[in-house]
C-alpha cells in the first residue's frame, strides 16, 4: 500500500473515536468452557463481539478462534493480554483489516421461479461471484464468499425477488505476516521459556504483527 493509500485507508476505517475493526486470533487448547472464558472477557467490559469463529488450526489439537470487534487500539491490546492470560490460551494476535486476508461465507435461498423469471442466474453468478449450491424446482441456494460489502450487495440485489433465507458465517482470517504456529508450539512445549515468548512491544515497537 502506498502512503497515500494508507492515509485514505485509515480515514475510511478508523472512526472519530479512534475505533476500527480488529481481528483477534487466538490459538488455544481445545477445551470445554474455554469459549465462555474468552467471551466473558468481552462481556465484562460491555464490548460487543461482531463475529466469532472457532475452528481447527494448522496444528492438530490446537484450536483457533477468530474474533472481530470494533474498538480502539488500546482497548484491543488490553483485551488481548487478558485473553492470553487464560491458562489454556497459547497465543493471541490482533490485527487491523489491512494486515489480514479474510473471508466470510454467505448462503442465499431464493425461489427458483422468481430467479428464472426475473433475474438470470447467469448474471448473478457472474456479477457477485456466486455459486449455485443447490438447484431445486422450488428453490435455489447460492453461496458467496467475500467481504461483508460483497455478501451484503447480493442481499440487496435479491431483496426484490423473495429472498427466502439468508445466513452469513463468521469471519475467518489469515494473518499476512504470520509464519504459522508450528515453531511457536515447539517453544511452548519446551520447559524453559525461549526469547520469542517474552517478546513485547516495549522492545519491538516496530513489529508488523502485534503480539504480546
Amino acid at each position, binding site marked *: 500500500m502506498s502512503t497515500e493509500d494508507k492515509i485514505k485507508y485509515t480515514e475510511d476505517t478508523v472512526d472519530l473515536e479512534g475505533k476500527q475493526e480488529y481481528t483477534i486470533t487466538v490459538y*488455544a487448547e481445545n477445551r470445554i*468452557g474455554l469459549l465462555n472464558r474468552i467471551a*466473558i472477557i468481552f462481556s465484562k467490559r460491555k464490548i460487543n463481539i461482531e463475529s466469532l469463529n472457532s475452528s481447527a488450526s494448522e496444528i492438530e489439537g490446537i484450536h483457533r478462534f477468530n474474533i472481530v470487534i470494533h474498538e480502539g487500539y488500546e482497548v484491543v491490546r488490553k483485551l488481548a*493480554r487478558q485473553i492470553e492470560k487464560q491458562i*489454556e490460551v497459547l497465543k493471541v494476535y490482533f490485527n487491523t483489516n489491512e494486515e489480514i486476508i479474510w473471508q466470510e461465507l454467505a448462503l442465499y435461498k431464493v425461489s427458483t421461479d422468481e430467479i428464472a423469471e426475473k433475474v438470470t442466474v447467469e448474471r448473478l453468478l457472474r456479477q457477485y461471484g456466486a455459486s449455485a449450491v443447490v438447484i431445486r424446482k422450488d428453490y435455489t441456494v447460492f453461496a458467496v464468499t467475500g467481504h461483508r460489502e460483497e455478501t451484503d450487495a447480493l442481499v440487496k440485489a435479491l431483496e426484490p425477488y423473495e429472498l427466502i433465507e439468508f445466513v452469513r458465517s463468521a469471519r475467518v482470517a489469515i494473518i499476512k505476516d504470520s509464519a504459522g504456529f508450528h515453531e511457536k508450539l515447539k517453544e511452548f512445549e519446551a520447559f524453559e521459556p525461549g526469547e520469542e515468548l517474552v517478546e513485547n512491544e516495549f522492545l519491538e515497537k516496530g513489529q508488523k504483527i502485534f503480539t504480546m
Partner: protein
Amino acid sequence: METAQDTIQQNEAKAETSKTLFKGTGSQVLLNGLIEEGVTTIFGYPGGAIMPIYDALYDYADKLEHILVRHEQGGIHAAQGFARASGEVGVVFATSGPGATNLVTGLADAQIDSTPLVCITGQVFAHLLGTDAFQETDVINITTPVTKWNYQVTDAKEIQEVLAKAFYIAKSGRPGPVLIDITKNAQLQLEEFPEYVKCNHIRSYRPKPKVRVEYIEQAAELINSAKKPFILFGQGVILGKAEEEFKAFINKSGIPAAWTIMGEGAIPTSHPLNVGMLGMHGNYGPNVLTNEADVIIAIGMRFDDRVTGRLDKYAKQAKVVHLDIDPAEIDKNVKAEVGVWGDCKETLPLLTNLVNENKHEDWLAKFRQYNQEEIDQVITPELYPTGDEMTMGEVLRNINEICGGDAVIVTDVGQHQMVACRYAKFNNTRSNITSGGLGTMGFGLPAAIGAKYGAPDKTVIAIIGDGGFQMTPQELGTIMQFGAAVKILILNNRFLGMVRQWQQLFHDKRYSFVNITSPDFVALAKSYYIEASKVDERANLRTALETMINHEGSYLLEVMVGRENNVFPMVPQGMSVSEIRLK
C-alpha cells in the same frame, strides 16, 4: 442405588494398595493427591454430592485436618486467611448447588487479591448433568469469571492430573483460586491409579517469563537519572517471597517506598525508607508526592482506583517503571515507560546490581515534612484523643504497644480496616490480612480462623466492625468446636461507619440505612462458650486489651468507639491524589 454398590467398592478399595498402582476410589486418590501436595488443613462443609469424598476423609483423619466451618463462605475465607498467613495453598471442600454457590464471594475475593486456593466441589452424577437434578448448579460457568482456572471432572481417571494442575496453577505465576468440580460417580469410581506426579509445566501457561536484561538496564538507567524517585509496592513482593530482595533494593537505592494495603508488612513499619500507605485513606506525603516524583517504580502492584484516585491527574509528570509478573497489568491503568515483566524475586536483584547507591536526603525530607503535618493534624488526635469518646486509632496504638508489631492483624472491611492498615505496626511479612480488592464485609472473622491455622505460633487478632461482624458471626461456632485461638476485637461505632462517613461528606448527611443495631456481642460469644467482655471507657481499654491478648484461647472484646468519627486523610472519589484532605 449407589449405596450398596458403593460400600462394596469402597471396602474393596480400602483393602487393596500396591506400590506403584493404587487401587481405590476417585475420592481416595483425591485425598492421596492432597497429601502429596503437602496439604494438612482443609476447610469444608459436607453435603450430598460430596459425600464419597467425606466418607474417604473419615479414614484420613490422622493426615488431613478438616475444619468444619458453619457456612461455605466462611470456609473459603478461612482458606484465604490460611493461604495469606502461611504462603501455602488454601484448600476448601464444598458440596454441589448451594454449597458451591456460597463459595463465589470468596473466589472473587481470592481472584482479585491473587490468593492461591484449590476448591473441590461435589457435583451430581455425570448422567444427571443438565437435568436440573437435586442440588445441581452450573458451578463451572458460575465460577469462570472468578477463578484463575476451573475444571469439571466426570471420570476418576482425570483426578490426579487435574489436581496436580490445579495446585500448579493456583500457586505459580500470579497466584489465584482454582476450582475443581467432581461428579459423584467419579468420586465413587473404582480404578487402578498410577503414582501421583506433581505438575510443573503446562504448555499453554507461562507462569513467569524469562527475564530480559534489556528492560532491567532501561529501568536502572531511568532510576539512576531520577532526582525524586518513588517506589510503590504491593502484594507482589509478598507473593513472590521477595521481601529480602526488596529490602536490598531500597537500602541500596535509598528510594522512599510506600505500600498499597495488600503490600503492607512486606517491609517492617519501622524501616526508615517506609514512608507509609498509598491511596484513598493513605498517608499525606505518599499521596501528594506521587504527583511530584519524577520516576515512579511500581513493584507488584496494579494501580487500583483506590490507590490512584483520578487517573488523568495521577503522576502525569512521572516516568513509570512497572515490575509485574502479570503482563496484563503493565499499561492496564497507568502507562509504563519501562515495563519489567517478571518475578520480582528474579528482577529485583538484577535491578539492585545496576542502581547507584544513593540517599535522596532532600527528597526524603519532603516526605518527613508532610508526615509531620499529618501527625499534627490527624495522627496525634486519632492516637491520643482528648475527648471522651474512644477512637479506633487509640485501640490500634494500644495493640501496637502490647504486641510490639508481632501480631497477625486480620481486618474486615470499612473504617476499622483503614484505621488498622494506617496505624497497625508490623515487624513481619504476611501479618496484614485484609480483603483489599473486593472489599468483602464478613471476611474478617473466618479469615482470622484460617490465619491462625496458617500461623499457629502467632497472636492473631481479628479487627472487625459491628456491621461486618454480623455478616459471618456463625463462624464463632467453628472457633467453639475447633478452638482456634483467635482474638476478636469488635470496634463498635453503632453505624455502618464508612458508608456513613461518605453520606456525611458527600450526601449532605442524609444517613440512609447506616444506622445498624447489634446484638449483645458479649452474650453471643458466651453462648458459643467464648470468653468475652465489653469496654466503653478509656480507663478500662488497656487492661481489657491485655486480657484479650493474654487469654489462652479465643476471646471476644467489644470496644465502643465514637459514633461519628471519620477516617482521614481522604482522597475524595474523582479527585486527584494531590487533592487529599486532612479533614
